[in-house]
């Protein structure tokens, strides 16, 4: 029986050695993006809801640690730049459209970052790519919701995903 006790002790010591690497709390690394397609203006607007602490980590990493944790106006500016780099609207020909900012809003622990693109051609053939924070968290899941007047559809993005059609 001593062998069994010795086994349990050895396993426990090994577990204590492994535990610190897994000690972080396990949040949901998720963003939610609402996409609105305006046929009359030929625009695609995306509002990305992202947790501020997660986004700050992404911004710092984007600057390879050279930037301090941004706050206030600096956070708004850098968050928009980060989202513009990680989010893409792709037209029917496979060409990424230029994204313009349409504002940033803070809501409790979330930042709502709005970007908009003008897209030529058939808007129902538009695709989006959302890799926001996929470079930071291996378990990042980005939900993109799009409404077409009859109901809504969702598309999930994880690390390594390419652009996906909305309709």
């Amino acid at each position, binding site marked *: *029986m001593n*062998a*069994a*006790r010795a*086994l*349990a*002790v050895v*396993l*426990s*010591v*090994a*577990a*204590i050695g*492994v*535990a*610190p690497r*897994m*000690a972080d*709390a*396990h*949040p*949901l690394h*998720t*963003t*939610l993006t609402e996409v609105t397609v305006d046929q009359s203006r030929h625009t695609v607007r995306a509002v990305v*809801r992202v*947790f501020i602490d997660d986004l700050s980590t992404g911004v710092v990493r984007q600057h390879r640690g050279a930037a301090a944790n941004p706050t206030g106006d600096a956070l708004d500016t850098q968050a928009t730049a980060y989202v513009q780099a990680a989010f893409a609207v792709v037209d029917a020909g496979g060409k990424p459209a230029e994204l313009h900012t349409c504002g940033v809003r803070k*809501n*409790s*622990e*979330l930042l709502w970052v709005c970007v908009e693109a003008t897209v030529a051609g058939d808007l129902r053939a538009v695709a989006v790519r959302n890799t926001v924070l996929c470079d930071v968290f*291996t*378990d990042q*899941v980005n*939900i993109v*919701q799009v409404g077409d007047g009859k109901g*809504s*559809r*969702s*598309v*999930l993005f994880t690390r390594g995903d390419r652009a996906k059609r909305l309709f």
Partner: protein
Amino acid sequence: MNELGTYIQLGFRHIVDVEAMDHILFLVALAAIYRLRDVRSALWVVTAFTIGHSITLALAVTGVVRLPSSLIEFLIPITIVVTGVENLVASGRRKAARGGWHRAVLAGVFGLVHGAGFANYLSALFVTHIALPLFGFNVGIELGQVLVLAAAAALLTAIDRVIVWSRLHSGSWPALRVRIVAVSLVVVAVASQWAIERRPW
């Protein structure tokens, strides 16, 4: 993909992700005292855990209660430690307490804590139209739990075989007791360290 499918997938990924070791370890701790033939007792306990976390998930996401994240993240490893210690105490009894209500009640109460952990994130993200994401996420969590428990059952069976093969058991220490003690000590060791590192003070 339709919206419901999206949220089912989100809940499922959240549980089976290797980053979700706290929830996985809790399920392993719950399963550690059971053999395949005890599946009925195990199902009662897992059902109680499911009911518990569904209640707090619904209450917190709909804004009925608001729970501080730092406290919840600290309490989650505490629930794992207590379950592991309870396993160790039960393993010393002549007939390990695999049946009975107390373990189901314990799992239900601890489920309340784990549900609050999921809820804080969902309630922040979905400010309107929460019912569908909540339902889908919960379904995904349940499907993920089934997968984790099936994997845990296979792992525990393999551990039993190793114990028997290497003759680590004896008359007073049957193979099941050796397995419960070994697995529970590992669980307690890991979760204690998490609790220390996540302490809110």
